[in-house]
């Protein structure tokens, strides 16, 4: 069993890496967007974003003041061994990261709105478990900003509307979001399953690297078509008008009930923060998301 202190330290390191330094694929996509924009306002905003990213790295400060609600994805290898104590270690790491980096304390009670002060609380940090082959554990820190998470949409589309119904729902969601989620965004689309699974698939898609298409050609085609269509709306960076509203669209699907067609949209702001590490049984740590 891996020492809990290693997991706690890793949680701090991953949160620090995630909030300060965007992954290379995200930075490159923002640079490309700048090259594609023609509007003066859009270019000025992308310049400010890129300058801010450089400043955050050099000053070792969070790239955005909304350091998010703490979300982790834990993919456990079947042969990794016991995971006892890991959620507690991650919560402890979250509290330390809030103090040490620092992060903005964002976790509040949903009704009283009282801030816990340390980014933990009921079910928070949120830990999404899944399993895979292997003798290691992969941990992704995915601090999720409130402005983009607020732009989450769900619909039970009528199965008879088919693909057109899915596309219309995604486009209508993006248009109604406008500038609110800090475009250029990444749009996650979850199709099928039950309601909760559709939302989870949409969110999980946001972890994929930029431009990595879905393995199913039909879904890959949908992603490309939606991206092109979204970038024809004219919403643009920060919703101030322009050519690049989204950097990427990623979809995933699950089989669903014959009577249903659940569709979910989960939005990611330009500050697409994620940091992933692999933790081996012997305590060795390898950072996967920020190779240099």
């Amino acid at each position: 069993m891996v020492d809990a202190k290693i997991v706690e330290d890793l949680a701090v390191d991953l949160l620090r890496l995630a909030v300060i330094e965007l992954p290379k694929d995200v930075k490159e996509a923002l640079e490309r967007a700048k090259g594609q924009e023609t509007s003066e306002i859009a270019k000025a905003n992308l310049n400010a974003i890129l300058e801010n990213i450089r400043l955050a790295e050099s000053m070792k400060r969070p790239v955005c003041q909304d350091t998010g609600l703490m979300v982790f994805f834990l993919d456990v290898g079947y042969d990794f061994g016991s995971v006892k104590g890991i959620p507690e270690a991650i919560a402890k790491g979250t509290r330390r990261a809030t103090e040490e980096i620092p992060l903005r304390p964002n976790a509040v009670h949903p009704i009283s709105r009282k801030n816990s002060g340390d980014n933990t609380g009921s079910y928070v940090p949120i830990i999404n478990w899944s399993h895979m082959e292997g003798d290691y554990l992969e941990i992704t820190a995915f601090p999720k900003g409130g402005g983009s998470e607020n732009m989450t949409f769900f619909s039970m589309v009528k199965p008879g509307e088919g693909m057109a119904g899915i596309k219309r729902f995604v486009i209508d969601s993006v248009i109604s979001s406008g500038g609110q989620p800090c475009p250029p965004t990444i749009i996650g689309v979850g199709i099928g399953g039950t309601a909760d699974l559709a939302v989870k698939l949409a969110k999980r898609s946001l972890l994929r690297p930029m431009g990595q298409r879905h393995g199913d050609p039909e879904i890959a085609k949908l992603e490309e078509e939606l991206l092109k269509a979204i970038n024809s709306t004219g919403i643009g960076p920060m919703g101030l008008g322009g050519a690049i509203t989204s950097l990427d669209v990623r979809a995933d699907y699950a089989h669903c009930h014959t009577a249903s067609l659940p569709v979910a949209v989960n939005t990611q702001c330009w500050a697409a923060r994620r940091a992933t590490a692999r933790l081996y049984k012997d305590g060795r740590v390898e950072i996967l998301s920020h190779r240099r």
Partner: protein
Amino acid sequence: MRRMEYRFKIPIPESEIRKLKIGDIAYVTGTMVTARDQAHRRALALHKEGKPIPIDLKGGVVFHCGPVVKKKDGEWEMVAAGPTTSTRMELFQAEFIEAFRPSIIVGKGGMGPRTAEAMKKFGAVYCDFTGGAAVLAAKAVERVKGVEWFELGIPEAMWVLEVKDFGPLLVTIDSHGNSHHAKIAKDVEANRPKVYSMLGISK
């Protein structure tokens, strides 16, 4: 149309604010405050009871922002301070402008027609600062002068900031009833049929 650039000292007189048109750029220097949902709500509740709020906002600048802060040697330090989504404050902004008469509201994503109407009536503007550009924004903060309503939590408290040349602030709602956001929304609406047809969606 040529875009003008203005540099203001806070408080800003209404006559200056009335000169601003959408597309203009402003930089502000002086004391400004942050306020999000909870601070707006509390300020309006106090006003209703006839009680004062801790800072006089007449001609002032209100920043929709919940910062990352650090306490060093007993002093607060601004680490990161970009704007938050302003549409949440649409619930309060028109009454807030009428009650406290600020001159500039800074945020991101724009605000609605009720706010635009209040700005026209009372002489205020709304400006966008690039969303998420938190380190850039924090660089303009020379000093944290204080914090009010700290019990609301770090993001929702009212931070009193000494800023120097805070900007560029892009005027997107002016005091003459013009809204850049409304114009973009109209453009996007006009594009909708084209976008649908790209995807083979019938109306």
